[in-house]
C-alpha cells in the first residue's frame, strides 16, 4: 500500500507530505510512515514493540564523494566535530548524555552519507531528538577542538595503514576511478588533513547540515503520531538551507585493465580485483547481487550489521576454487548499495607459499567461466534463499531496522528498501548471465596486489 496525503503535525499545523509504506515478507511487512516537514526534513517512523527501546538516526546526504580536491576527508572530520558540544549541550556532556539512559550512540561517514545514531530505552526519545536537532544547528567547532581532532583523525588514518588489506583497498579504488570522487578515501589524504582549517570544517557543516538535506528515522517502542509531533517540535523551526549542489562527474567507461602492486614489508599477500558495478537504484544491481552470492556467499544489504556475520560460502564458486584448493585462506566479495555506480570487488588472502600468479589466474578463470556459462537454476535458488535469510537476520534489532530505512532513503529511496525481497525474487538466470557478461570484461577490471617484502628488507 502506498498513499500520499497532507496532514498537520503538532501545534504548528504544518503542511507536510505523508507517505505510508508497507512492504511484505521477512520483517519487511511492518507499516512505515514517511513524512516531509515544511523545511524539507524527511521523517520516517516504524513502530516495533518487541523491546522497550527506541533507535534514532539522523542521516545527511553528504559523504566523501561531495568533497573537492584539497578538502578530502572533510565529511568525516565534520562528523567527529559534531560530537564536541553544542550551544545547549556542554562539550563534556555530549557523550554521556545518552549513556545515562543505558543508551548507545555513534556515527559514521562513507562515500554517500554521514549519519548519527542513538539507541536507548523509549523514555529517552525526547533527549535523542533534542541531541539530533542540536547537532543539525548548533555545533561549536571550537578552534582548539578542531586542532586536537586533527591528530585523532591522523591516528585513525595511520591505524588503517597498519592493515595491508585496507591499504590495498584504498589504492585499488583510487586506481579504478579516474574522474569520479568515489576515488578518494573517506578518511581523506594526509596532506589535506594536515592543511584543512577550522573555517573549512565549519563552512562545510553549515552548507550540508540543513533539514532539506537530512532524514530523521525513529524505530522502536513508540507511537508514530507522538514521534511526528516531537519531531516537529524539535526540528520544525529550523530553516531550510540552500539546495545542495551535487558533483556531476560521471566516471568514463574504463577502456583497459588497470593494475597496481604495493610492495612493503609484511607477511601475507593480498589480491583484490575490482569491476565497475551498478548503483543500487539500477535494475542491474540485483542480478549482480545474486552473482556475488553465487561466487562468494550472500552478505545481505545492511552495512551496519553485515560485517558481524560472515557469509554462507562453503558452496560458493570462489570459495571452492580458491580456499578449498588451498590457494587462499579467505575470499570475499563486496557489492555495496551505493547512490552512484561503484565497484564489485573480490578480495583474496593468499595462503603461505601460494604463487601470486596461480591465485590470480584461478580467480580470473572462475570469473571468465561465469561470464561464458552463466549460473545454474540451482545456484540461483540457493542465492535467493541465502538473501531471504540475510534480510531476516539483518533486521533483528531496532537499531538495524532504523539503519536500513535511513540508509536506503539517503542513497536511493525508501521504496527501493521496501521492494528488496521482490526485486531479489524476480531475478532470473538470464539476467545474472547478462550481468556477468557486462561486469567481468577485462577492460572493466582493476587488479591490485599487496606483495609482501621480507621483514628484514631495507
Amino acid at each position, binding site marked *: 500500500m502506498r498513499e500520499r496525503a497532507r496532514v498537520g503535525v503538532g501545534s504548528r499545523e504544518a503542511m507536510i507530505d505523508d507517505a505510508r509504506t508497507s512492504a511484505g515478507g521477512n*520483517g519487511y511487512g511492518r507499516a512505515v510512515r514517511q513524512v516531509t516537514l515544511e523545511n524539507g526534513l524527511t521523517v520516517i517512523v516504524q513502530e516495533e514493540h*518487541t*523491546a*522497550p*527501546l527506541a533507535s534514532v538516526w539522523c542521516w545527511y546526504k553528504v559523504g566523501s564523494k561531495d568533497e573537492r580536491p584539497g578538502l578530502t576527508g572533510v565529511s568525516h572530520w565534520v562528523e567527529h566535530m559534531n560530537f564536541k558540544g553544542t550551544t545547549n549541550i556542554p562539550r*563534556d556532556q555530549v*557523550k*554521556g548524555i545518552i*549513556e*545515562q*539512559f*543505558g*543508551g*548507545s550512540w555513534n556515527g559514521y561517514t562513507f562515500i554517500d552519507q554521514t549519519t548519527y545514531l542513538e*539507541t*536507548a*530505552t523509549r523514555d529517552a526519545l525526547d533527549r535523542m531528538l533534542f541531541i539530533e536537532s542540536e547537532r543539525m544547528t548548533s555545533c561549536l567547532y571550537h578552534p582548539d577542538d578542531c*586542532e*586536537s581532532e*586533527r*591528530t*585523532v*583523525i591522523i*591516528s585513525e588514518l*595511520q*591505524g588503517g*595503514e*597498519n592493515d*595491508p588489506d585496507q591499504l590495498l583497498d584504498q589504492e585499488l579504488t583510487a586506481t579504478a576511478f579516474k574522474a569520479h570522487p568515489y576515488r578518494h578515501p573517506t578518511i581523506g589524504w594526509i596532506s589535506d588533513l594536515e592543511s584543512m582549517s577550522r573555517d573549512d570544517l565549519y563552512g562545510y557543516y553549515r552548507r550540508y547540515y540543513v533539514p532539506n538535506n537530512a532524514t530523521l528515522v525513529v524505530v522502536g517502542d513508540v507511537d508514530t503520531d507522538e514521534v511526528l509531533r516531537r519531531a516537529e517540535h524539535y526540528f520544525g523551526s529550523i530553516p531550510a538551507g540552500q539546495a545542495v549542489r551535487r558533483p556531476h562527474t560521471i566516471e568514463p567507461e574504463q577502456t583497459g585493465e588497470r593494475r597496481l602492486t604495493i610492495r612493503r*614489508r*609484511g*607477511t*601475507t599477500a593480498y589480491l583484490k580485483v575490482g569491476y565497475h558495478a551498478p548503483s543500487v537504484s539500477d535494475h542491474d544491481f540485483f542480478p549482480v547481487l545474486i552473482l556475488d552470492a553465487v561466487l562468494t*556467499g550472500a552478505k545481505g544489504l545492511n552495512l551496519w550489521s553485515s560485517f558481524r*556475520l560472515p557469509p*554462507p560460502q*562453503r*558452496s*560458493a564458486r570462489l570459495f571452492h576454487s580458491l*580456499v*578449498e584448493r*588451498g590457494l587462499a*585462506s579467505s575470499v570475499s566479495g563486496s557489492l555495496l548499495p551505493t547512490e552512484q555506480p561503484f565497484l564489485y570487488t573480490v578480495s583474496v*588472502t593468499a*595462503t*603461505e607459499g601460494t604463487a601470486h600468479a596461480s591465485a590470480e589466474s584461478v580467480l580470473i578463470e572462475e570469473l571468465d567461466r561465469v561470464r561464458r556459462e552463466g549460473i545454474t537454476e540451482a545456484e540461483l535458488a*540457493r542465492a535467493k*534463499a*541465502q*538473501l*531471504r*535469510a*540475510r534480510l*531476516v*537476520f539483518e533486521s*533483528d*534489532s*531496532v537499531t538495524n531496522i532504523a539503519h536500513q530505512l535511513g540508509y536506503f532513503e539517503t542513497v536511493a529511496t525508501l521504496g527501493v528498501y521496501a521492494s528488496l525481497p521482490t526485486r531479489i525474487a524476480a531475478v532470473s538466470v538470464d539476467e545474472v548471465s547478462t550481468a556477468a557478461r557486462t561486469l567481468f570484461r577485462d577492460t572493466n577490471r582493476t587488479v591490485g596486489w599487496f606483495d*609482501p617484502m621480507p*621483514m628484514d628488507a631495507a
Partner: protein
Amino acid sequence: MTPSIPSATRPEKGLAPLRAALENGAVFLGKQTHTTPAVTISLAMRAGSMCDPRDAVGATWLLSRVIDRGTATRSARDIADELDNRGISLTIMVTRHIMSLVCTCLADDFEPVFSLLGEMLMEPSLPDDEIATRKGEVVTAIRQDEDNPAVRATEALMALLYPHGHPYGRRTKGAIEVVERLSRERLVRLHAEGFAPGELTAVVVGDVEVERAREIAGRVFGLWRKSPPAPVPLASQPPVTARQRLVIPMMNKAQADIAYGFTTIRRADPTYEALRLMNHVLGQYALGGRLGASIRERQGMAYYVSSSVDPNVVEGPLLIRAGVSPANVDRAVASIDQELTRLLQDGISAKELDDSRRYLIGAMPRALETNAAIATFLQSAEFFGLGLDYDVRMPDLLRAVTLDDVNEAARRAVNPERATIVIAGPYEET
C-alpha cells in the same frame, strides 16, 4: 532406546529461560522470542584452548577449524549444502575454556540445523584432506597476526601476565611449527578426551516453542554417553609484583599499539561488580572513560583508547589498549600512568559511579534485544553459575556497590608500579 525428557526449571521474571539437565549431564537452556522468524543456536562445550596438551598448543584451534567439515554420516560437501542452502553461517569460537558452535537460522530450519550441529559436536570425522586445507588457513592466519601490532601487543602482554605456559598466556592459534605437525590422530584424541555430554550447554533462543526445542535437544543429545573428561589443572595466577615493559619493533607500520595490563580477580569474587564499575569509569563510559577523556579528547593522541576487564575461572586480566603515533607512545603511557595514579589517590566521584551504574543497568534491555545476544548472556550465566535469574538480580548487585567498594577494587587492581606494558609498532626503546 528413547532418551528421557529432562526435568526443567525456570524463574518467573525477566528473561525466564527454561533450564533442563539431561540424564547424561548435558544442559539445555531455552527462551522463546518473536522479534524475527529466526532462531539462534549456541552449543558450548567446556573444551577450550586450555585443553591443549603442553606440546600441542593450538590443537584445539585446529580442531575447531575441522570439526564442521564432516561427520559420521555427512561429508563436508553435504554439510556445505545443508548450511548454504539455508543461508546459514556457522561460527565456531574458541576461548580459554569453551569451544562453541553458534548460528542463526530461519525458524522453519531449526530442527534439521540443530541435529546437524549436534552431529558435528559428537561425531566429527576429521578427514585428513580437510585437516591439511585448514592447516594452511591457520598458518596464514598466524602469519597475519605476526604482522598485526594490536595482536602482537595483546598476545605478548598475556604471555607476560600469565608466564610459564599458563593456559591464559598461550597463543590460542599456537605456533606454525606445532600446527604443521599436528596429526589427525592427535585431533581425534583431543576430541575423544575432552568432548562429553556433561561438558555441553545447548542454548536455543528465538521463534520456536521452548518445549519443542527441549524435546529436540533431548532427542539429539539424550543418547550420548561418555565419561566425564579428566579435569585439566588450572593454576591460580599471582599478580605481577614489579613494573615490566616490552617493546616489539615493527618498523613497517604507521601506528604503534600499546597494551597495558594487570591480572585481577576471579569471576566468582564477590567484588566483581565493583571491579566492573571501576573499569567502566576508567576506560568505557562515554568513549573510553577517564582514559578516553585524557588521551583522545584533551590531548588528541589516539583514535582509540579503552580498558576492558575479563575475570574468569581464575584471575582474569584488565587490559588497557591504545593506538597512537610513534611520537606519542611515551606521552600516552605516561598519561595512562597518571590516570591510574589519580584513580588510586583520589578515587572516583559519586557522580561517576552513579553515571556508570545507570548506564550498566539501563543498557540491559538493549544488551538483551537480539536472539544472539540473549544466547551469549545465557551461556555466560550458565558457565559461571550465576543463576537463571541473573538478569533480574544484576541491577540490585550493581546498586549495592558503594564508592568505597569501587575505590578498594581500584587499589587491588591497577597500581602503575606493577603494570605490564607492551608496545608494538614503529617504535624502538631509546
